């Protein structure tokens, strides 16, 4: 059939024997497809000719041997051949086979380079083609296999078990440009303000970590201590009044609103603790006795606890003349954090001695003393929705926020805040806690609890935030920093929900005065 073309007829004498043997090999049908050489493929279907019969005998091949050595392409092959003839007759025949059909030889090697397994097919076909001469020779096979870039002592193994079926149909296209996480509903996404709701000046505020100079009452009044002056800013009316000015030899080191918002307790640097009636603008009483400055105070109904620089914590009953009812002594350095639990059964205190003490109201020895912080503990906050959960934050060297179970004393969680923690405020509407920071970030961070995921941070101040206070409706956080700014942030603003008084909790509303349903800041 193809013999009509001159080229193929010339080659036919060489090709046909191989072809005929390939035909007889069981592997042949598969390999034909892979040997894409067109003339071999077309030959496959050709009827067996008389030539086939003539040269079908192995003897015939021997007659070709001299022919091929003559036809050989270079001296190297000529040089090789005698060597191998001497050693291995069979290998020589393989070389010849390669010489026989140059086009096929080249195609097989290039294919083996590109596709090692086609090479393998060729290798096996080569070995079968010459199998009539030397079917059992390992050397021959390996040499041919090697020539085809395929190691003979190799097995192709497949992992037999079926791969598990995909459970649903997959449209690959839908996968492209697809976000890895499903987009969060815009309404559900937590949004944080980047700008302060309002900024007030706080000139002359003392840049002292150990002082507590900012508080927000349940009557929506913000008290701030600026050196010797105490100002009250009414968040509803926007008016500011100066409540008091201390004598020149002392300054305000701590202040705290009473639970009903009618009085403010003022701690002074000389150790005096004063109660001021805000409505009247006059001092109700003075409770002296502390030997050093009073940096922190906390109210539990009529009991005012004050933490002193000497490490002592005094409990004053503000109703009676002998005001000092008990003393908690365990801190060895300045007490800078003090917080009664909302039910008044436990008091948490933090000091410059890196300790956190949890006191039972009935006992003057600490229930738990925690030494985990490695720096002063000023930030303390009891969780409003889980009574026995206490959060404490450490200073510059520590940067940790620890969460404690106040009942068992166990540490339940820890956040590495990365900055000095200056205050902590739990949200009353979200399951979140906000921390204010000093060195190095000077920011506000909002964390989810108990997932401890950071929901965001606000770069609000240029310098370290000294303290913070949460508005009575729980939506707004006031922060004061050493850059002499008092800023208000709507960090826990409720979107889509009515601000109901229920959120604010009974303890805050205990003052008896009605709190505006929606708080206004003017």
């Amino acid at each position, binding site marked *: 059939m193809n013999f009509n073309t001159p080229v193929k007829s010339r080659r036919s004498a060489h090709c046909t024997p191989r072809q005929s043997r390939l035909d007889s090999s069981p592997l042949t049908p598969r390999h034909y*497809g*892979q040997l894409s050489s067109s003339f071999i493929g077309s030959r496959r279907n050709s009827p067996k000719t008389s030539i086939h019969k003539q040269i079908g005998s192995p003897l015939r091949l021997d007659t070709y041997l001299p022919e091929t050595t003559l036809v050989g392409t270079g001296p190297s092959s000529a040089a*090789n051949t005698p*060597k*191998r003839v001497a*050693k291995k007759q069979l*290998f020589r025949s393989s070389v010849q086979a390669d010489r026989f059909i140059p086009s096929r030889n080249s195609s097989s*090697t290039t294919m*083996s*380079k*590109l*596709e*090692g*397994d*086609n*090479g*393998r097919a060729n290798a096996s076909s080569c070995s079968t083609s010459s199998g009539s001469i030397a079917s059992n020779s*390992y*050397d021959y096979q*390996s*040499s041919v296999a*090697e*020539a*085809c*870039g*395929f*190691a*003979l*002592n*190799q*097995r*192709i*193994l*497949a*992992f*037999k*078990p*079926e*791969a*598990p*079926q*995909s*459970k*649903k*149909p*997959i*449209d*690959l*296209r839908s*996968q*492209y440009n*697809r976000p*890895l996480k499903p987009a969060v509903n815009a309404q559900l996404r937590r949004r944080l303000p980047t700008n302060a709701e309002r900024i007030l000046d706080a000139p002359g505020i003392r840049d002292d970590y150990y002082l507590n100079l900012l508080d927000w009452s349940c009557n929506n009044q913000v008290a701030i201590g600026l050196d010797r002056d105490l100002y009250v800013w009414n968040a509803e009316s926007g008016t500011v009044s100066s409540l008091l000015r201390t004598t020149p030899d002392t300054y305000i080191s701590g202040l705290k609103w009473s639970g009903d918002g009618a009085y403010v307790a003022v701690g002074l640097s000389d150790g005096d603790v004063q109660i001021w009636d805000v409505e009247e603008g006059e001092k109700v009483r003075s409770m002296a006795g502390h030997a050093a400055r009073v940096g922190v105070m906390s109210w539990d109904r009529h009991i005012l606890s004050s933490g002193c620089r000497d490490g002592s914590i005094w409990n004053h009953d503000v109703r009676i003349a002998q005001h000092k009812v008990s003393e908690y002594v365990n801190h060895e350095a300045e007490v800078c954090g003090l917080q009664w639990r909302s039910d008044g059964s436990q008091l948490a205190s933090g000091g410059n001695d890196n300790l956190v003490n949890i006191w039972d109201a009935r006992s003057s020895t600490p229930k738990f003393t925690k030494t985990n912080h490695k720096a002063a503990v000023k930030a303390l906050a009891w969780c409003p929705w889980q009574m026995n959960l206490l959060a404490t934050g450490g200073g510059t060297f520590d940067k940790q926020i620890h969460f404690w179970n106040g009942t068992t004393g166990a540490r339940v969680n820890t956040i590495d805040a990365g900055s000095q923690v200056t205050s902590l405020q739990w949200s009353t509407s979200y399951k979140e806690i906000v921390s204010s920071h000093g060195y190095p970030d000077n920011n506000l961070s909002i964390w989810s609890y108990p997932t401890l995921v950071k929901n965001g941070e606000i770069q609000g101040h240029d310098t370290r935030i000294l303290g913070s206070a949460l508005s009575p409706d729980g939506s707004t956080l006031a922060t004061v920093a050493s850059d002499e700014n008092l800023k208000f942030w709507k960090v826990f603003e409720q979107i889509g929900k009515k601000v109901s008084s229920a959120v604010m909790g009974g303890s805050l509303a205990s003052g008896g005065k009605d709190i505006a349903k929606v708080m206004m800041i003017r």
Partner: protein
Amino acid sequence: MAPAQGSSTSGPTRSKLSLKGSSKLVSEFFEYSINSILFQRGIYPPEDFQVVKKYGLNMLVSVDEDVKSYIRRIMAQLNKWMGGSKISKLVVAIVSQDTAEVVERWQFDIEVFGRTASSKKSAGSPANKENSAPVGAKGRAVDAPTDKTIDEIQQEIQAIIRQITASVTFLPVLEGRHSFNVLVYADGDAQVPAEWIDSDPKEVQNAEQVKLRSFSTASHRVDTMVAYRLGTVE
């Protein structure tokens, strides 16, 4: 061929740990690659995959229990073979479930430094090797393995994974349902558990091939290649 002899003789002096560690690294790379391929080629739905940080990238790893255990079984055996340097290729063949045709073939060629010459017993006379040297991949094994830091190796791996990820841009979209097969090219003397059977190479017919990057450790070199069917050409 001379350098090959050099590296092969220096091979055994290398500490065993480095070969072990290198095998582990390579197997780990295979595991992540297989997962990446399964994700990128949509063999399993994307919801079944979870992001894992690895090689400084976000790698997607299947969390489907069946797929996980299937891959784990493959990896367990692969680890054994890798430890003994018994395999020279790993192939992930993607097979159409409708026509049972191999439509895509990911091939990882594993070169173990210092093994090629030593383990090839009676492959022929030295003169014979002369012939084989320029053919096939063996010639590359001679590259003297350089001492690389883990970071450098990781970066090479990262580049390959990135290429696998990027390959969706040129690979044809796989229509219909597909499954995958894992093949290995093992040495004749490798121990073969019953789960593994002899197979044809599962070549892609009418294939286009793209060679991806390689990476190498002190003891291994892994070349990556993908063959895929040109959809339009029959």
